């Protein structure tokens, strides 16, 4: 056993046993962040704050919420919103935070993509972050069911039904997920369990992992510059604050984050009090009614882009049904970001503006995702359906083209571009005459998907990046 002196204060007593000084240094006072950053680097702290708000408001809501199809709606809309002291505030904060957190997640993700913060040692940061995106999505979906309004019910009906598209086990899987043949009381209680226990637990563990993955490769900076963190830290500690390229997490990094956070909170609470309909859809204030399908069923805004990738494939192509193609595309869309570090063959860590074609690729991706989001909500009729088709094919094509683009394989890139153009022509043909040429289009799709899955491997075999 180690030697212990008599302590002169409570703090010293604790410090002897828990090494508080050292812990604080490791976690904050001597945890080094590059100095060359902008406010986008504050999104992590904003996200952490939003998650904390979600947990705390969630705990208060949990005290009055009743996970029972007969009681859920009134427990939220009457008990919590009207009877409980400030229940309405917790509910508004919870609902708006759940929506806004995705806005910040998307900004955080796109920042990572723009500054190439997902490669050359930072792959695990990216992957753990994407795991958080997926678990947050599951958390949001399960939470949206709980008030048991019309859209809670019908979104659950539509989304759980998607699992039926999985070959062989699909139908059984849907029943297993729902706990019944249709969305009903057992569905609500199990999603309640997921929402308040299992998923938050997993999220908290992955947040820990996400922070841990930052330790070795360190946070990226605005220029993608490689920094000798130990040497720079010594400079800072020696008082050469102006010369050092790093700053400590506390208080320097956080002092800026607090300011960004303050501005963000003004925006957030404005939404909470005065502009909440986008996050608390009016239609969900109608109680769930399995007998009455709403005229428009749509997910929350943050799922619209992947929903539109699913919906974009709306015409059968030969032996492939629209549903199957849509599901495959949807499945790809939901996991493709995980593979970004391997689809990007360029080893250079620099902002997109200094990575040539990647700059164009990045902004095409942003524009395409915005189009998918907007058209994911518009009724998929007439011309709108074709815009969705083009944007969905475009989304897949962007990722298929990335390896060729970044490895500067002109031939391969041309191939992806041509394939995409052909797919667009296929859509055009479908538009002008709804039948015919099925086999040709099916073959094109096979080529497209083969290319899509194999292109990173091909690029590597043929030569790879500079």
């Amino acid at each position, binding site marked *: 056993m180690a030697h212990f002196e008599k302590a002169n204060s409570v703090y010293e007593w604790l410090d002897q046993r828990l090494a508080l000084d050292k812990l604080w240094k490791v976690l904050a006072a001597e945890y080094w962040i590059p100095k060359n950053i902008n406010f986008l680097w504050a999104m992590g702290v904003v996200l952490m704050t939003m998650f904390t708000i979600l947990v705390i408001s969630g705990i208060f809501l949990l005290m009055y919420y009743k996970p029972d199809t007969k009681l859920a709606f009134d427990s939220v809309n009457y008990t919590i919103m*009207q009877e409980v002291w400030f229940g309405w505030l917790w509910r508004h904060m919870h609902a708006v935070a759940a929506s806004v957190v995705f806005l910040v997640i998307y900004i955080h993700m796109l920042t990572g993509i723009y500054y190439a913060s997902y490669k050359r040692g930072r792959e695990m940061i990216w992957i753990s972050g994407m795991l958080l995106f997926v678990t947050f999505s599951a958390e949001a979906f399960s939470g949206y069911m709980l008030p048991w309004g019309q859209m809670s019910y019908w979104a659950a009906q539509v989304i759980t039904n998607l699992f039926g598209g999985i070959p062989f086990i699909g139908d059984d899987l849907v029943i297993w997920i729902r706990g019944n043949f249709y969305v009903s009381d057992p569905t609500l209680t199990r999603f309640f369990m997921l929402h308040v226990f299992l998923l938050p637990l997993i999220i908290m563990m992955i947040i820990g992992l996400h922070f841990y993955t930052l330790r070795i490769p360190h946070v990226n900076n605005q220029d993608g510059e490689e920094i000798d963190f130990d040497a720079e830290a010594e400079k800072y500690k020696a008082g050469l604050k102006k010369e050092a390229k790093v700053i400590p997490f506390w208080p320097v990094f956080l002092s800026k984050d607090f300011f960004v956070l303050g501005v963000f909170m003004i925006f957030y609470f404005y939404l*909470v009090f005065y502009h909440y309909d986008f996050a608390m859809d009016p239609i969900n204030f109608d109680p769930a009614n399995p007998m009455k399908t709403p005229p428009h069923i749509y997910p929350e805004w943050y799922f619209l882009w992947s929903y539109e990738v699913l919906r974009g494939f709306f015409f059968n192509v030969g032996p492939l049904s629209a549903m199957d193609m849509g599901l495959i595309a949807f499945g790809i869309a939901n996991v493709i970001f995980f593979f970004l570090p391997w689809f990007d063959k360029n080893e250079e860590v620099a902002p997109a503006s200094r990575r040539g074609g990647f700059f164009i690729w990045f902004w095409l991706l942003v524009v395409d995702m*915005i189009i998918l989001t907007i058209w994911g909500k518009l*009724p998929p009729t007439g011309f709108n359906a074709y815009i969705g088709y083009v944007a969905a094919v475009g989304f897949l094509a962007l990722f298929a083209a990335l390896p060729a683009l970044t490895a500067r394989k002109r031939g391969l890139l041309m191939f992806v571009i041509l394939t995409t153009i052909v797919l667009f022509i296929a859509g055009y043909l479908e538009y002008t005459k709804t039948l015919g040429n099925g086999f040709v289009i099916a073959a094109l799709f096979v080529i497209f998907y083969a290319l899509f899955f194999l292109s990173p491997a091909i690029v590597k075999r043929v030569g790879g990046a500079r």
Partner: protein
Amino acid sequence: MNKEFKILAIIIILVAITYWGIEPYAHSKMHPHHEPATFKYEDLKPLALKGDAQKGAQAIMNNGCTGCHSIKSQNIPAPMDPVSASASYGVNPPDLSNIGAVVDPKFLANFIKNPAHAALLTHKFNDTKPFPMPNFYGSDQDLADIVAYLVSIAPKEISPKDAFETACGRCHNLRYDKWTVIGEKPKFKNDVEKADFELKLAKYETNLKKYLGTTPPDLSMFIRSRGPEYIRDFVENPQKILHGTAMPRVGLTEEATEKVISYLEKVGDRKKEKRDHLGIWVLGYFVIFAFLAYLWKNKIWSELH
């Protein structure tokens, strides 16, 4: 610094475009535009004659109105209890004490003359399936007198709750304010009273459903699910917004509609005032927070460059 503003501007523009697309634009595509309510009821014939309230008191007896309708303020009781009335007519005929305070007089005259026509329910009711209230075949002078009488006995100022009960309360429950289609839910002394009330309610609702073809929704959360503008336009002309609906046009005046809406707001969004008030304080707090954080940040970062 300049660069940070540029990044912020790009983010704001992209978020604004996305927001515009998924909220105002998408909703304008999902819910086709309709003309806002005017409460003029211009399709109906105006009252030609001036009525005499005293003669109207007589006419309302002579024409048998009180055979179905109560006028409780004039001590004329209902001939039947609500459940029996619903069994006979589908819905309990309204008490006429307050009708003149919520319904437009021109609409009232047209409704008495030809109810299905004024209520815009000719797609539901015709010669083979007549509207439960018969057309009025008396003289136009009698009609004008009856309207004048109903207006004269109506209170000058009606409470939002009474406006709701007269206009909506016989078809729509409002469970968040203990209102049911057969009246306010009383405090039960024992389980027998409770079961008795619930049985009556169930019978009434079953009759109502048979009559309308659907159960009219509880309106407790309509202020949040539909919003004031929708309710306003819908009440003025249900067919315009929900073509083919069984809901009658009830001919409310603009003031009465506003009262109904304010009552629905009080029941469904009781904390609105508190929310609006507290919001200012919370926003104020974070404005100060951000300002102080900015000063602190500047102090710390000034040593770094």
